[in-house]
């Protein structure tokens, strides 16, 4: 392989926004693709409060790749190289520190210095948008595995961007519908006071109202708020019978404790709040939450999910996170696409992923389909709640209530804001 081939030169040039060169990519690129090696640059959060999510995503990608390439999984915990079916995949990880600027720099470094074939990320939607920007300018495919902002595969959709994790709208369509039908009739909304919280509340509210529920009021709370009793008091005074919560991290933990102590009359549902570390920290306070539209490891009943749980337990001595399902699907899609395309070049890979049904996923065989209209994966959505348990290492366990069909849990192509994707 020459030291600098045309493809990599073009990537580097366009990533630094040298005007004009990007347009030539279509003329000069292509050809010379390598069928036996691939590198993936992952920009995610591996140090901050959401490090458990970032780390679990890296594990999920490795598992998906290993399964699709039929690779040996024994060294998976310690190695960032997955080898199988004659293909060697190298995973390079970079920490975004949850900052968009850092994410952008790291993505540029991965594309320019490390010459990765695929970018992947990120926990925060603003970091994901920055990585998406770099990926698109460099004509490098990108998989989004955590970030949930609808715009990434909505207004900002393009042929290079694929997402296997769920959007805030998929959460709202499944969770909001289930909540309106099963939880209550009059809802109070508590959201984090930044774009994700506002988007989530607006989407849940519209879905709940479409399904016959009503909105009693709403509060937006600064991140880091240490006392949620005022909002429970306002919800109580509003006459609401249920609460929808869109908070993350320790805010979600503190809210859940206050809810358990004060708001025992409310049924609560949430987006963002419910993660595995949250369950381990709030314990029985988790039982106040239901209609949760997230993947929890006991929900799916299929051999791939069992294999993932087994691998997680033996390699990392823990259970999969709520983002493992999407990260595994991305890893599997990359391996599957690489084998079908017989190349690590962007264009043939993109053609494979465009409309791809992913063969093995944590939600079942062929459960994920990457839509041609906006490159967002559609998949069945789980709705669950938490129950007290004894004997295990945790005080509560997630229990599945219902599964919604993939198409019913995603906005129709015409409503996503994506103006279509031309290959």
């Amino acid at each position: 392989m020459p030291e600098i081939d045309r493809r990599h030169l073009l990537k580097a040039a366009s990533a630094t926004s040298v005007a004009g060169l990007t347009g030539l990519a279509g003329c000069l690129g292509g050809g010379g693709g390598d069928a036996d090696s691939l590198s993936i640059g992952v920009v995610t959060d591996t140090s901050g409060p959401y490090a458990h999510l970032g780390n679990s995503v890296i594990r999920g990608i490795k598992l998906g790749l290993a399964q699709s390439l039929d690779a040996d999984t024994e060294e998976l915990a310690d190695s960032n190289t997955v080898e199988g079916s004659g293909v060697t995949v190298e995973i390079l990880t970079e920490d975004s520190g949850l900052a968009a600027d850092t994410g952008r720099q790291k993505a540029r470094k991965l594309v320019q210095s490390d010459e990765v074939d695929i970018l992947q990320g990120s926990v925060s939607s603003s970091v994901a948008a920055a990585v998406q920007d770099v990926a698109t300018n460099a004509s490098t495919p990108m998989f989004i595995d955590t970030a949930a902002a609808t715009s990434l595969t909505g207004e900002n959709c393009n042929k290079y961007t694929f997402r296997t994790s769920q959007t805030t709208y998929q959460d709202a369509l499944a969770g909001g519908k289930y909540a309106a039908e099963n939880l209550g009739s009059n809802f109070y909304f508590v959201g984090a006071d930044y774009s994700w919280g506002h988007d989530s509340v607006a989407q849940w509210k519209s879905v709940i109202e479409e399904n016959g529920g009503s909105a009693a009021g709403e509060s937006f709370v600064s991140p880091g708020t240490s006392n949620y009793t005022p909002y429970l008091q306002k919800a109580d005074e509003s006459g609401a019978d249920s609460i929808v919560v869109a908070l993350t991290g320790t805010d979600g933990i503190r809210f859940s404790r206050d809810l358990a102590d004060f708001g025992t009359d409310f049924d609560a549902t949430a987006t963002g709040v419910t993660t595995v570390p949250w369950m381990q920290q709030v314990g029985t306070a988790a039982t106040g939450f239901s209609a949760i539209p997230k993947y929890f490891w006991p929900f799916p009943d299929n051999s791939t999910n069992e294999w993932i749980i087994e691998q997680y337990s033996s390699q990392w001595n823990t259970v999969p996170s709520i983002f493992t399902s999407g990260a595994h699907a991305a890893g599997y899609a990359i391996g599957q696409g690489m084998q079908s395309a017989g190349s690590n070049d962007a264009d043939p890979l993109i053609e494979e992923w465009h409309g791809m049904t992913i063969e093995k996923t944590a939600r079942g065989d062929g459960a994920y389909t990457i839509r041609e209209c906006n490159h967002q994966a559609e998949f069945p959505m789980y709705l669950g709640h938490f129950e007290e348990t004894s004997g295990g290492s945790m005080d509560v366990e997630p229990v599945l209530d219902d599964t919604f069909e993939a198409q019913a849990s995603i906005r129709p192509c015409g409503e996503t804001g994506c103006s279509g994707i031309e290959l």
Partner: protein
Amino acid sequence: MTPLSVGLGDLATTFVNGVSYGMILVLVALGLSLVFGLMGVLNFAHGALFMLGGYIGLAVMELTGGGITGFVLALIIAPLVVAAIGAGLERTVYKPLYDTEPIYQLLLTFGLAVVIEEAVKYIWGAAPPGVPPRPAVFDGAVVFMGISLPYYRVFTILLGAAVVAGTALFLSRTRFGLIVRAGVYNTDRTATLGLNVERAFTAVFGLGAFIAALGGVVYIYRAIEPSVGASIILPAFIVVIVGGLGSFWGSVIAGLLIGIIWQFAAVYAPVPAGTVIFLVMIAVLLLRPQGILGEAEVEV
């Protein structure tokens, strides 16, 4: 219920919840105020000691099998361990900086906070740790005249009050407290009289760390993770500023006042509650720049 029917019961509920929130602020701010009042050191590492107390408390609870026994042991052992660490830091790291510019102290204590947080991440990991179930004695609430206050909040209020009273008595009624206060008034003269002022300062720094760690253990059942110290230090500083830099009783009053005002604002005011603590600070600094009980020394 319509807004018009907001009665005395709702106001009382808001007030009591505000007091319980304020007491958490007092627990965090007290050690900070004490160390500033006696040594003039703005200790940015105070939040990290608070967080460290929570993690050591968790370790104690895990070793002792959790439950109420584990929690009580954590409330005793973690503050003692953190106090020892604090005293050790005072001897080795803080002491050479007493007579230097405040900027050196800021840099040093900020750096220490980073070191402690990274050490905790290295030992216990960056993700929020698992927490043993909260002891069952804290389940439920005191119901009094229509106001419901959960037991854990009652416990926090009582513990905060006990810490305030204990510290006040220590400073005003013990011989050691007398040396401390004399040392603050005039370090050189007190030393000339043959009293060991240095040892008193070390002990007070240890006491500040002890109270911080106690708050950290209480906070295990709010939410604990490595960055919790960094997020708690800002409101703590505001409480100390509003109370009057270094004023012991000023911090107590300011903590409770901010807790109550915040609670009322969050329920009734149309502004985002996150801004309230800053509005209170601005108002106090405009009307009374030295703070509520502002004098740069301990008032006991």
